[in-house]
């Protein structure tokens, strides 16, 4: 048994990055520390393995719970008259109250797409009408259905999750169940139906405003004439692109409302958990939208 300080000193040039003072005087203590570090490392890898396994279990359990909840949601409403009332209310609160933010984002989004396209056309062989064409295609195919849906996932998703989550933690959902009301159907079904009906309307509105924003930016900056821009908008227009965008929108609307409803409904605890449910609703809705965007694009455009 020898002291490590002696060993290091014999090689030490005085410029060592290891401070000798930081080493323990006793070699046994040093060994113990190394052993503890090894145990800690093993424990950490164990925790990592356990948490990974635990995480996968949680994911599958959530998917199972989601499917079971949807079974409860998609049943015949107990009172049709009450369902229609709620549907109108939800169309107003989830759809019409989002008009402002959709309009604002769409106009600026269209303007930015048009400006960027105009500045990137260097070749005199490319006609300036391409700016209108590119703006139209970008806005209709991707920006309006996907970006606006992501914005709605934030606005509408958090609203749905926090509203239902608060009802859960204040026992309002239990009160519904005790009365004999199918609470999942009563609370979530009108929201899903309203989203699926109103979101395509919002997206069409967004497309129109996006292109209008592009035209406004071009007119104001003088980069492209109105005639060129309008000519570009009309080039090779296919009605299928609108169908494609609205199909995506319907899927995204379902994803936003059902996932947010699920996280709200499954809330357990208090105010903190309602906040967490709201965050999870936005995060998982956004991730699912991005994934389904890829799948739907592949399916619908090929």
């Amino acid at each position, binding site marked *: 048994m020898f002291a490590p300080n002696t060993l290091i000193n014999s090689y030490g040039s005085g410029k060592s990055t290891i401070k000798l003072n930081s080493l323990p005087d006793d070699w046994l203590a040093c060994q113990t520390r190394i052993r503890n570090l090894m145990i800690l490392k093993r424990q950490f890898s164990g925790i990592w393995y356990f948490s990974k396994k635990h995480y996968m279990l949680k994911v599958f359990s959530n998917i199972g719970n989601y499917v079971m909840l949807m079974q409860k949601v998609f049943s015949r409403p*107990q*009172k049709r008259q*009450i369902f229609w009332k709620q549907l109108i209310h939800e169309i107003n609160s989830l759809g019409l109250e989002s008009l402002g933010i959709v309009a604002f984002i769409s106009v600026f989004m269209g303007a930015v797409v048009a400006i960027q396209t105009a500045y990137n056309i260097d070749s005199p062989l490319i006609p300036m009408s391409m700016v209108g064409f590119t703006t139209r295609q970008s806005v209709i195919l991707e920006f309006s259905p996907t970006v606006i849906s992501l914005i709605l996932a934030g606005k509408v998703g958090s609203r749905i999750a926090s509203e239902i989550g*608060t*009802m859960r933690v*204040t*026992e*309002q959902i*239990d*009160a519904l*169940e*005790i*009365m*004999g*009301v*199918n609470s999942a159907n009563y609370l979530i079904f009108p929201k899903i139906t309203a989203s699926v009906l109103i979101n395509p309307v919002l997206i069409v509105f967004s497309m129109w405003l996006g292109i209008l924003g592009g035209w406004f930016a071009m007119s104001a900056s003088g980069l492209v004439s109105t005639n060129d821009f309008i000519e570009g908008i009309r080039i090779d227009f296919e009605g299928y692109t609108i169908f494609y965008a609205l199909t995506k929108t319907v899927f995204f609307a379902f994803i936003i409302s059902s996932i947010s409803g699920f996280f709200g409904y499954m809330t357990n605890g208090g105010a903190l958990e309602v906040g967490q449910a709201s965050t999870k609703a936005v995060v998982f809705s956004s991730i699912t939208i991005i994934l389904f965007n890829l799948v739907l694009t592949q399916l619908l455009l090929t």
Partner: protein
Amino acid sequence: MIEGRNISKKFGDHQVLKRVSCSFEKGKTNLIIGQSGSGKTVLMKCLVGLFEVDEGMVVYDDRNFTQMNFEARKKLRQEIGMLFQGGALFDSMNVEQNVMFPLNMFTSRPEDEKLDRVNFVLNRVNLENVNKLMPSELSGGMRKRVAIARAIAMNPQYLFCDEPNSGLDPQTSGVIDHLIQEITQEYNITTIVNTHDMNSVLSIGDSVVFIYQGEFWWQGDKSTILHTDNQKLNDFVFGTELTSRLKK
């Protein structure tokens, strides 16, 4: 009459209820008492079906609730009224809409008839001119009374009250307790009240079930509870300064 037979309930590894058997009679205010965490809320939620029992059964007047399917339960639940700890009034509806909710959902009566019923039950719980107020504009006691009005709007056969006195001053607690007792006797219904308030036990406890650490420990009434030699129950009942002085 409501019966719980050998009810067991477990959450993870934690056994909350251990083969609890008890019965609650019609026309009486039946109280479930016990310390916090003893399992009385879980027992009540098992009785109303908000939690599924792991073992045992719940019987409502010879109808086995545990074995009922979703539709049969839905039908039976229309005979149940429940008062939750915080009232559980719907925040988006005013008082009138809250009380009218079960009537809208399960009856096809004309609007004016439903409104008459709403006003009747609100008067019954001594509330006037509150129809258009939102739940956030009500005091704790008023919220509880609106919740009672909503619970009795459909003429229930069974009334469950989960800690009706929590968060209320002693005087308002007394008003709520007596209201529950009056309604029970007036409509001849089976009422189960979950409480740890000894004032309630001594004033309205027609039948009292004591739960200790998830087990059925004692059953009696308000007159026998003060003279029992059950040590655990004595520790619970005479645990406060006021009740210990009362015993002396």
